[in-house]
Structures are given as C-alpha cells and as structure tokens.
C-alpha cells in the first residue's frame, strides 16, 4: 500500500502542508520537510516552481518566482530529495504544473519520483480526462497516486467520475478561487462541505485553498478528512524564516 493510502486510514484529521521548493533559499528543501514531519504534519506537498502558475494566488506566485530566481529546477529538486527516505517517512507529494513535467518526460518524471520515494502528484493543469486517457497507466506502473481537484462548481456527475478514478484522496478546493489564505469560511463553504460529505464518496476529501489558521482548519475538517495549508505557511516562512516552522504548526492544532 502506498504511504498516502496508509495515512488516509489513520483515525485522525490530517494536516498537509504545501511549500515551494527553492524558497526562501535554494537549499531549504530538506530542512523544511524534516521540520514539518518533526512537528507532526501528516503529509507534505512539495511545490515544483513554474513560471506561469495559473491556479495560484499572489503568495505562491511570488514564492515560485523567487524559487526560480534562486535556481530551482526539476533536476535539482530530484537531487535534493534523493536520500529523503532515509530520514522522512510521511507521505510526500510533488505539486506542480504539467509543462515542466512534459519537458522532463512524463515517464522519466514518474520513474524518478518512484525511485526517490515520492508517493503522489498533484498537477492542477492536467485535466482528469486527459490523465485518464493518456497517463494513468504510467502513473499506475510507478505506483504513484494522482490527485484531482473538485470545486464548488464541479457537477455531481463529474465528482462521481473523479471519485471513481481516485485511488488516494480528492483535493477539495474550498471556493471558486486561486490559492490564498482566508481568515474564515462563510456559509457558502459550509453548505458545500456538507453537500460533498452527503455524497458519501469512496475517496476521502482533503480541503485546500483558503486554509490559514486553526479556525479554517477546524471548519474544513468538520466533514473532510483533512486540510492543506499553503499560502499561509509560505507567508510564515517569508516573515519568520525556516527556523520557526514549529511555531506555525502549533497554531493550527
């Protein structure tokens, strides 16, 4: 069983943290991952920076731009991660846009992930239909779990389709928006969360976009299996650096 699947079976609400590889400094990747695990984070999304991150709000955009300026590349990220499984045991997911993966070669990319011990991928601009038709067999061959997004606008029929081909979790986008921290969720989100919960999907849902603090984490995980924090963590890194990761995690739970 894949580490993601194992983690999803644990009887707890999962906290997943996103960070952009190569930010704040080029060689921070390993320390960030290790500190997140040490502080009880359940799962990590390692952002592979892209020049044109369409689905991201200003915070993650800026971190991506800085990471690229710092010299982050696909090759370098793989190099930094090559011994990660000697010390880190929680699920690791690479989140990035499709173009850099295409240039590396989709199969070569998957093979490298498997070799390192990456458990899954999140590729916001690779649509589920395209994945299903052209790439699923490659992902399966290398034991990688791909994760799909749903939004408040996603139709029930499409959610069922996505649920059906998901072998990990469903990434539930909290609102119609790009990534970015929000301080509270309103009644729209609450009813969306309830609507999805009522669908009794086979794949657990983890909520992302707009989770920033204990309150939003709590709200999101009332019905969902877990939540992902990205922009708020990046902001914390840019304000307090990489030696204050524990302080951030403790404010969430």
């Amino acid at each position, binding site marked *: 069983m894949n580490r993601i699947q194992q983690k999803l079976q644990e009887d707890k609400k999962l906290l997943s943290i996103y960070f952009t590889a190569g930010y704040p400094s080029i060689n921070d990747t390993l320390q960030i991952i290790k500190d997140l695990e040490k502080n009880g984070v359940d799962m990590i999304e390692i952002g592979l920076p*892209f*020049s*044109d*991150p*369409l*689905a991201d*709000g*200003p915070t993650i*955009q*800026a971190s991506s*731009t800085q990471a*690229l300026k710092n010299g982050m*590349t*696909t*090759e370098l990220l793989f190099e930094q991660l090559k011994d990660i499984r000697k010390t880190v045991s929680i699920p690791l997911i690479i989140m990035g*846009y*499709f*173009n*850099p*993966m*295409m*240039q*590396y070669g989709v199969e070569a990319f998957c093979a490298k992930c498997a070799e390192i011990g990456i458990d899954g991928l999140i590729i*916001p*601009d*690779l*649509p*589920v239909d*395209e994945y299903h038709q052209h790439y699923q067999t490659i992902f399966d061959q290398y034991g990688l779990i791909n994760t*799909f*997004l*749903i*939004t408040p*606008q*996603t*139709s029930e029929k*499409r959610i069922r389709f996505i649920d059906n081909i998901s072998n990990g979790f469903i990434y539930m*986008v909290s609102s*119609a*928006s*790009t990534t970015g921290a929000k301080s509270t969720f309103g009644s729209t989100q609450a009813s969306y969360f309830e609507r999805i919960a009522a669908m009794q999907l086979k794949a657990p849902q983890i909520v992302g976009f707009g989770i920033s603090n204990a309150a939003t984490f709590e709200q999101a995980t009332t019905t969902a299996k877990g939540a992902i924090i990205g922009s708020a963590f990046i902001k914390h890194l840019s304000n307090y650096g990489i030696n204050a990761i524990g302080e951030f995690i403790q404010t969430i739970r």
Partner: protein
Amino acid sequence: MSIIPHNIANIIVKEMKSYHVDENGYYGDFGGAYIPEMLYPNVEELRTQYLEIMNEPSFKEEFEQLLKDYVGRPTPLYYAKRLSEKYNTKVYLKREDLNHTGAHKVNNTIGQILMAKKLGKNRIIAETGAGQHGVATATVCALMGLECIVYMGEIDIKRQAPNVARMKMLGATVVPATSGSKTLKDATNEAIRDWINNPIDTHYIIGSVVGPHPYPDMVARFQSIISEEIKWQLQQKEGRENPDYVIACVGGGSNAAGAFYHYLDQPNVNIIAVEAAGKGIDTGESAATSALGKEGIIHGSKTLLMQTPDGQITEPYSISAGLDYPGVGPMHAHLFKSGRAEFVSITDADAMSAGLELCKQEGIIPAIESSHALAIFDKKQFNPDDIVVINLSGRGDKDLNTYIDYFNL
C-alpha cells in the same frame, strides 16, 4: 459516377478537413484544454454551446450587421499596383487596417461580446499586450453597455500609454499585471485567474487563437470573415477564388487564422506564416516560436512555445508588441509541424524597412506586425502571374512612436 449527391459530398469533404480542429479540440497533436479544474465549468459551458450559438440565425444576423455598419466591413481587397510592379508579381492587400479600431482584432471581440450576451454574462475580462485587443474589447463593451476589465502587463502599460488612455475613455478598467515578467503572458495569466475567481457572471474574451479549446477554434471562426471576403473579392477581380499565396504575420496568430481559414484545405493555395525574428533568431531576442519553441503547455493549450530546457516559459522579444508572445496558436503549430504552411521569420530591421516602403509605395502606414508580412518580398521570389494576398492586419497609428524613434523622424 458517385452515388452521393453533390451537396452531401461537400459536407463529407468538409467533415474530413484535416487542418481544422477535431471533435476533441485538437489540431493534430496540438490544442486541447489543459486547464485547472476551477476553470472547467466555464470552459465546458462555452465548449458545449459555442457552435450552436454561432449558428443561430439571430446571432449570425446581428454579427454580420455589426461587422457591416459598425466595423465597416467588408474591408477592401486592394490591388497594390506599385508594389506589384516593383516585385513583378500581383500583390493584393487585405485591408484589415481599415476596420474600426484599426485592426482585425475587432472581428473577434464583436463575435465574443455577442456570445457573452447569449451566455448571459454581464462582466467581461480580457488580456492585452500592446493594447489593441484591449481597445477592441473596451469598444464592444461600451457598445453593449457591459463592464470591462482589461489586464495588461505593468511594463506594457508604461510602453503603451495612448492605448491605456483609449481603454479608459471607453469605460474599461485597466488592471496592471505585476506578476512574472509583467507583460502579455502575465496579463493572460491574470485574466485566467480572474476567471477562476469569477466563474458565474464573467466571460473571458481571449484576443487570439490561443488558450484552451474551444477558444482557438471560436476565435478562428470569428476571424474567418477575412478569407471569406478574400474569396469573393478575388473572384470579382481575378475570376477565381483562390490566390497562389496567402501571407500573414503570426504572434498568437488570429489574423493569420482568419486569412488562412477558408484556404486551409485548398492544397493549391500556398500558406505563409511570418513570425517575428526580433533581432535575429540566434540572438536570444526573438519571438520566432516555430524556430525556437518546443511542444508544451501554455495558457491551457498544447502547442509550440519558447521555454527553458526545464520547462519554464521564457519572455520573447520583437519590436512589434503584437508579435511577442512566447507561444503560437495550436492551429499554427499544426500547420508548421505538418508542413501545410511555410514559416518565415523576419527581423525587426527588415520589418521596419518593409513598413516604410509600403508608406512610400502605396500611401499606407502599416502596423509593425503587418510590416513583418510585407517583408516577405525580401525573402521570397514570386512569379509574375502569381496572385499574392497579404493580410494587412492593422494600421500603424499605434506604432508612430516606434517608427519615430527607429527612423529618427
């Protein structure tokens, strides 16, 4: 003798067109809709409805009426006598520069604003590089009384002050794109992000044959009026619908898509796409995507784009703001890869002198984008009886400052 009636046979031939978009939104290997799930409902709504709406008689009627009375179509197909004599061939110029707002861009914005109304949208967003598409969008929004937000790179806002002022006069809000390289590609990213954040009431009017399916096809169809007119105009003037060559400049490629559209499946018509070489293909300051690009994903479309070996999209360069896009529409990527079209690249210097030559020879000041297409005569010899149609996509008023600086006028 065929048992299939002629009109049915025609339909079958049309269905078999290999250079038009297929039912999955691809041109050969290129196209598709590589979009985040957040955009799926918007794009899907458009995909499932655009053809039906475009074929509604009321839609067609209003579109044609506006093109005629508001835009000023048909634009002339002008026999350029002195240019023809100089190059010893028959040169026709398709005068898209005479459209309202000064370029072909308005053909598409008229079509899309009517589409937006049919879809019940009341908020319009657009991206713009040099400002031409922004102005064309602001114009139709004023015409229809709809809210208009135009994203424009912070750097372009500084470079193109007159067009920013035009958009403001027309009632649009111009929002600076401050991310990435702060130019057209980033303005496009910002417009897409806006659409993600406003999925219900907003229509995104993309300015070129780029973006996720169905945009490349929809924009090409709205621009196809260009070659539709060339056909009957040439029939009147030369007694035949098909020229030997049809030539247009390509940035994203909307004017070219329109000029080529009805000739794509006419193998006797040679198609030439002219890209901007900038300071030269090997100088690192170029926008010649077919020569420098590799297959990848930009703005939701699989196409050729300029990028680093690591897959980061790079910033192109051309003296012409309308041609410095790092990608190219998927139709053009397919025309290039399949060999259906010949791709030529023209440097800043050659384009500028071709532009000046048109001023002197024919009394027409062309947009610098169009000047790239005119520079074909430096690259290629035509036969005396060849009919060569060049799409003069826009007028040069907007480029006056560039011409002034370049030629020390």
